């Protein structure tokens, strides 16, 4: 369970990233955070694995306030939180299997990982993860030989290999075209349902948020301005969150049937 209590974050340049955020996320939920760019979506997500550190309030993960974690404790926290990035963040020169095994680094000793000595179980797990996102045939391809959608699937496999309890996805489909975006979101939702991994996704596309989320959190200027199940969300809700009327480019679009057979 993740619980944010009166959480605020002011960046050194004075920008307020988060402002008195109070959110409780139960295990197994699929939460989508929506908001314009700069609304604090990234700051929200990055606070949970402490890529940024909130300046006020409390942030509990599994009952522990994580804000004073450092060193080994912080790394331990991070091993149970997987993260997916907008730009995939793979080592482009490395092949797919090596990139996926990077998810085991937090569970592997320093010396062993420097010499790429991963256990047989780890390698089997990495291969299994690749199979789950249907990219096991690209095992030995270099990451930079893959398309954007394939790279994002490799990064999902990397997170699966980490065996996390939570998955954070920071704009995972912002660099992808509509069909591939749906494919990636379907994988994320499938993993959430099958493994019960709590998943928090940042999106700025309204239609995608509506399609995949169980619950939507709306943010504006660092504040949570909406928090509720998808069933309660209407177009007015989004206009409220965005502070303006909905436009064409707030929608991702893309026909769902096209990608159905690929998943």
């Amino acid at each position, binding site marked *: 369970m993740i619980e944010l209590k009166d959480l605020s974050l002011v960046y050194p340049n004075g920008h307020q990233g988060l402002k008195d955020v109070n959110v409780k996320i139960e295990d197994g939920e699929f939460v989508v955070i929506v908001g314009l760019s700069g609304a604090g979506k990234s700051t929200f997500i990055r606070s949970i*694995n402490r*890529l940024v550190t909130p300046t006020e309030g409390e942030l509990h993960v599994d009952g522990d306030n994580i804000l004073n974690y450092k060193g080994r404790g912080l*790394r*331990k*926290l*991070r*091993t149970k*939180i*997987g*993260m997916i*990035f907008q*730009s*995939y*963040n*793979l*080592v*482009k*020169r*490395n092949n797919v299997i*090596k990139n996926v095994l*990077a*998810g085991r*680094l*937090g*569970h*592997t000793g*320093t010396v062993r*990982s*420097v010499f790429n000595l991963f256990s047989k179980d780890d390698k089997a797990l990495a291969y299994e993860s690749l199979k789950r996102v249907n990219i096991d045939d690209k095992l030995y391809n270099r990451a930079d030989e893959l398309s954007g959608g394939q790279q994002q699937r490799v*990064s999902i496999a*990397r*997170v699966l290999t*980490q065996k996390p309890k939570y998955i954070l996805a920071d704009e995972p489909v912002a660099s992808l075209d509509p069909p591939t975006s749906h494919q990636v979101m379907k994988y994320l939702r499938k993993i959430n349902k099958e493994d019960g991994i709590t998943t928090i996704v940042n999106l700025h596309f309204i239609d995608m948020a509506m399609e995949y989320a169980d619950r939507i959190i709306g943010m504006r200027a660092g504040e949570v301005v909406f928090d509720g199940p998808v069933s309660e969300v209407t177009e007015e809700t989004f206009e409220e969150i965005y502070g303006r009327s909905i436009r064409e480019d707030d929608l991702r679009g893309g026909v769902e049937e096209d990608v159905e057979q690929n998943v």
Partner: protein
Amino acid sequence: MSNKMSKPTIYDDSYAPLLSPWRVKAKITAIFLVIIIFLMFSSWRTGVDLNELIWGFTNMTQITDKLFPINMAILGPAMNTLFETIHMAIIASTFSTLIVIPVSLLAANNITTNWFVYNTTRLIMNVLRTIPDVVLAVIFVGLFGIGVFGGIVALFIFSLGILAKLISETVESADMQPVEAMRASGANTIQAIAYGVVPQVLPQFTSFSLYVFEINIRASVVIGLVGAGGIGSLLMDQFSFNNYGAVMTIIFVIFAVVIVIEYISGKIREAII
């Protein structure tokens, strides 16, 4: 005139832009003028004279007369000292390549965020690089005595300075996004560097190491002249005995070996980049 009239006129009033703004053009012209002024000033100050250059070449025949015929008897000792030179270069290159790994990480601002450590490492490396190889050789031959050992230490310091600069800059240009991903998954700093940065810099690292090995072969000849062992010392000895035939043989041997090593290492570098 009539010809001009008959031409299509659609572009007549249109604006044809310069390829670069006039400010840029003026700047480039100014830079060229400054360079020419510097060139003229320094040739006037140093008294460089084209006549002298041409007259100097007439002395060439005197030297070539002495250098030929070449003395093949020196070939045996030349080969022995040549291997000594190559050994010096190999040992110095290997050690500098190993030591430069931590040094270049400390001298890369995307890895070393501590301002003091970063700048101190940079400063030490910059100071090392300003010392010419011959001066290093004189210092270490003075410390360790005439022979190969002083030469190796001199070459080691010399190549460490070059490698630290080249490799720390390669590390600085590495993509840090995978490192962020690894840190976010609980990897420690060493793991994130070994797994996220090293694969990115490895091809350049290998290439620069081979390049430094090439430089070391040539530099080891030069520092041999001041008593740091190897074929350079043999060359100096033969010079002082006015044994020019032998000098020419040694020059040919060095020439051949430099060409061969540069060819091989060039091929290897082509293959990995």
